[in-house]
């Protein structure tokens, strides 16, 4: 059964220095509040797994939380670079970071394999590219039936998966809808899991029996954080703060302006600030 906790207590008990951590959400429902709590608690040497590192890993990497990044597309969507990620890779600031680089398809297959209890995933991919030359975790095998050359990558099995969802019921069952991305697979592939939600309700209010619902017993902890996905969004609650994604380019370009922003908007505040930020995007 999922345990309802305050966000600081949940992060403190579930995320440890040196863990592999997947904060997922494909553009939608990115768990920013949980990422900020990890930064505030000063976690170090994390292996961060995420298809699109997005602003949240830019912030965590720039804050010195990460030892390694496993990813497939590290840009600011529609805007440009993730400057903190680039600074870490290009100049080792604030610390050098190891990268394990995949394609989206490989990452999606690796999460699915983790959720399915498989050691690895195979698919049609990577043929003719240079990625296998720089990532020893990309290998090839021949289909035993047809001989077709298939790419193979290890399953993702993070120590902790963290997602944001629209709502939970009082028993701790969690609903997410809209662009559901890779979140179900991330939760089911992980040893421990944390879900932040917009609200807790008596009835999940599913509109279809096929809505994505994660049963309470697949989740370790739930924390209620209204607005916890801002500047990403929660379908049905508030929109993506595209202006913030654009503004981040200037904030993150410079180490000093990044540090100032992080102090003011992350280190010196708590999860309660997310509600009013998201309210501006309703």
């Amino acid at each position, binding site marked *: 059964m999922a345990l309802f906790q305050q966000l600081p207590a949940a992060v403190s008990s579930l995320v440890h220095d040196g863990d592999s951590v997947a904060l997922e959400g494909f553009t939608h429902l990115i768990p920013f509040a949980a990422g900020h709590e990890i930064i505030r608690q000063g976690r170090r040497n994390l292996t961060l797994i995420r298809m699109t590192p997005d602003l949240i890993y830019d912030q965590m990497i720039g804050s010195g939380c990460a030892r390694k990044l496993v990813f*497939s597309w590290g840009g600011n969507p529609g805007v440009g670079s993730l400057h903190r990620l680039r600074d870490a890779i290009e100049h080792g600031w604030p610390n050098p970071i190891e990268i394990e680089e995949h394609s989206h398809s490989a990452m999606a297959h690796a999460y*699915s394999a983790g959720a399915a209890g498989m050691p690895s995933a195979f698919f049609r991919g990577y043929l003719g590219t240079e990625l296998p030359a720089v990532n020893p975790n990309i290998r090839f095998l021949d289909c035993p039936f047809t001989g077709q050359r298939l790419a193979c990558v290890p399953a993702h099995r993070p120590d902790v998966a963290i997602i944001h969802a629209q709502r939970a019921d009082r028993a701790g069952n969690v609903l997410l809808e809209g662009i559901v991305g890779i979140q179900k697979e991330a939760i089911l592939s992980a040893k421990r899991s944390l879900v932040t939600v917009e609200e807790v309700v008596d009835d999940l209010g599913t509109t279809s029996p096929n809505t994505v619902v994660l049963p309470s017993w697949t989740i370790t902890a739930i924390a209620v954080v209204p607005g916890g996905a801002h500047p990403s969004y929660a379908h049905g609650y508030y929109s993506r703060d595209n202006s913030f994604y654009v503004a981040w380019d200037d904030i993150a370009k410079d180490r000093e302006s990044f540090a100032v922003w992080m102090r003011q908007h992350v280190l010196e505040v708590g999860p309660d600030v997310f509600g009013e930020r998201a309210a501006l995007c309703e």
Partner: protein
Amino acid sequence: MNYTATEIMTIGAARALGNNDVCFVGIGLPSVACNLARRTHAPGVTLVYESGTIAAKPSVLPLSIGDGELCETALTTVPVPEMFRYWLQGGRITVGFLGGAQVDRFGNLNSTVIGDYRKPKVRLPGAGGATEIANCCGRIFMIMRHHARAMVENLDFLTTLGHGPTGQERRQLGILTAGPVLLVTDLCMMQPEPDTNEFIVTALHPGVSREQVCQNTGWAVRFADAVRETEPPSEQELEALRDLNASTERAHAGRAAAV
């Protein structure tokens, strides 16, 4: 009507899409071209974004591949693993639209690094969906601005396979999809020459000279025997494009929280 180089590039790319195409759309120039096609000659074109949104009909251009507008207007939204497995790898997509930081004469793309992989001068975003889009879509269209830093003799890194480093590897690897068949730039249209698979200039945009193309291409670019002139944008195409861009700008002009 007057028009810019970017406008004729976008319109030229949009024209290549057909009403029955199912198109995997990347953000940026491809997204503009695909949504323009849907607003002009190809209202039936199906736009698929890698966030899982199938048959999205956004009223403004999304900033990301996962803006809420895509999901709200889509016929259906599927999980990301399903998007890559059933729809892309399963061979349901007829056209993939790609760009990159560098392209070579055989349509191979780099979106990974400038410089050495371990000590990059510029770290680019990486592969994203591109490697398997290029492998699994029926055909690939590319859209890029034409300058010698982008159209290079040698890629710094081969992220996405076109026809291969010598133009033959794609076929030798047994990949059955066509790969890159069209490269639209702000100067010209290029298509692979039969057999060699080298991209050659098949049409120049009005007012563009061969010298201009040569100067802005990092390899010794060749021209088809009969080089056409790209048909200038029509009033209707330009109006649709400008309207799309203007309404997009208005929609994204909100105030950011926490700045």
